[in-house]
């Protein structure tokens, strides 16, 4: 009987040591999209999302605390950087163009231009130790975060950790994934037209018809227009089918001659050399330059590339061939592509650094 009080006290003490359960949170999603697939082992919580947001903007992740995720993924540029190739620590050039993060949480298949990451959680682990990106070391970073007076309690709270040694790179990846999964764009002019809240201009209407090959459809009023063949790969609502294609950027007669093996380096199949993941086109007007190596500076150049049919490769997509777009039709296609811009997304304060961010 005399033991009862110490036992109760011990139980109370142990309970007090356990962090409170994090608060579940699901960002509002538009009806037009199939719902985001939240991984069972990383549901978004208010605490995890805030932590991921802080980490995203904090250069603490890089070796010399000069580069953050946001150094390449600037929100005002739809989370790209305006450079042909990303720039890493000490100005080191990256290998490829920075992809946009618009609606990245909806892209549940592979990530990166070559699809080398299976999900956002694992994708987020890549840049930290890449010598051309953040140039750091996971053991050092984790050691720093475990001892950090602000980050360690935040990790503890977000993931219910007991001791600092439980903090691993996976928790960093999970927090960053939670923030990235919240980056939802659904208020472009295209979206508003779909919802019946706006109408395309005459030029945008023609561009829309070219983009979606409406000349192919029965009883169409666009029968005389060329087909752009765009939506085979860039299919709405996210304007990507998340698969890999050679889009005729370079004339290549042997797979080994591709300057960048792309998907082939991951799959090991020569037929996949020179293939890259079709990027989503939302906010395209903000994400120049274009292609995996940023070789094209304008949307006009991009449309002209596809209008010519691109260059020869045996694995060039069969849907890439000369389109026969006249100059006004090419301009109309560009006008339509600009309707995919969502200014409310790039200006959303919830996607910018927190005022009271962890330091």
């Amino acid at each position: 009987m005399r033991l009862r009080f110490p036992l109760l006290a011990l139980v109370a003490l142990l309970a007090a040591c356990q962090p409170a359960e994090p608060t579940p949170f699901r960002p509002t999603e538009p009806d037009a999209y199939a719902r985001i697939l939240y991984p069972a082992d990383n549901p978004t919580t208010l605490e995890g999302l805030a932590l991921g947001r802080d980490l995203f903007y904090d250069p603490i992740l890089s070796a010399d605390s000069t580069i953050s995720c946001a150094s390449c993924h600037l929100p005002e540029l739809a989370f790209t950087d305006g450079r042909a190739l990303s720039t890493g620590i000490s100005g080191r050039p990256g290998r490829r163009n920075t992809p946009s993060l618009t609606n990245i949480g909806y892209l549940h298949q592979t990530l990166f231009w070559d699809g080398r990451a299976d999900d956002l959680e694992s994708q987020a682990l890549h840049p930290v130790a890449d010598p051309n990106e953040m140039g750091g070391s996971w053991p050092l970073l984790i050691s720093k975060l475990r001892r950090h007076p602000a980050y360690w309690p935040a990790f503890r709270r977000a993931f219910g950790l007991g001791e600092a040694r439980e903090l691993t790179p996976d928790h960093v990846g999970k927090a960053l994934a939670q923030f990235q999964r919240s980056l939802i764009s659904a208020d472009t002019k295209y979206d508003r037209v779909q919802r019946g809240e706006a109408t395309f201009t005459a030029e945008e209407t023609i561009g829309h018809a070219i983009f979606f090959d409406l000349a192919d459809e029965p009883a169409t009023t666009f029968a005389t227009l060329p087909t752009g063949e765009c939506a085979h790969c860039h299919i709405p609502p996210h304007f990507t089918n998340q698969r890999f294609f050679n889009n005729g950027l370079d004339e290549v007669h042997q797979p080994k001659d591709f300057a960048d093996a792309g998907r082939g380096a991951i799959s090991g199949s020569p037929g996949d050399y020179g293939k890259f993941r079709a990027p989503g086109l939302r906010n395209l007007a903000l994400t120049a330059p274009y292609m995996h190596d940023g070789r094209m500076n304008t949307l006009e150049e991009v449309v002209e590339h596809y209008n010519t049919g691109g260059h020869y490769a045996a694995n060039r997509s069969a849907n890439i061939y000369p389109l026969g777009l006249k100059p006004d039709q090419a301009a109309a296609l560009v006008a339509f592509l600009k309707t995919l811009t969502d200014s409310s997304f790039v200006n959303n304060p919830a996607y910018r650094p927190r005022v009271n961010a962890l330091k």
Partner: protein
Amino acid sequence: MKYLSLFAFLSLFLVISCEDDDDLVQPQNIATTLEFRAAYGGADLAIQDATYDYPTGAQLKANLFQYYVSDLSLIDAAGNTLVLSEIDLIRYNSAADGPVVSRTYDVPAGDYVSVRFGLGVKPELNAIDPNNFAANDPLNENEFWSSVTRYVFAKIEANADLENDGTFDTGLTYHMGSDALYRTLTFTGNFTIDGTDDPRLVITADVLKALTDGTNTFDIADPAQRVIHGGNQAVGTEIWNRLAEQFSLTLEQ
């Protein structure tokens, strides 16, 4: 009296439990794999990894072959239908993935007499937009044309060398689908699933047989017959019909 009531209640519970157990006896489920094999002229289809002869003298390199399967079912000896999958997409777009797509289902042990599936997206699903399905549902594999033309039931894409100059510079892109094209295919073949020496169920689709029946060959030299997209399905009906007719089921031990 109190104990007597308790005894009576427990006895009743025991009897009911035993009866339930008897009712719940179910045939044993066996993990059964169906293999969807892709071929060209009888050989395994190797995306971009092989050069294939075309009957007109041209050569082809395949880029993509895929088709939707609706209501994949086994029919048992009593005529009962066991639906294994309501909708699936069978896709070959990288040699790294090989020529066989395998799917495994829990199948009650028993005798079966046929395999049946619908080629394409069945009309009741074809009427529903992709956003109504889970993001990882086969109907969210971004094979949706538009609110008018709906899902793409099947695709064959290849690059052809028409001049035999070693360059595969003529794209062939056949995208097919509409409610009118939907077909139900049934393959008869008696087999037993009991967990011992079960046969491998192999459904083979041969791309060449979709393009030619040996007598009539799709004319890929004609520019008007290199692209079938969206609503111009009339050109592709010939390919679709042959595609639907050439599937085969083999039971392999």
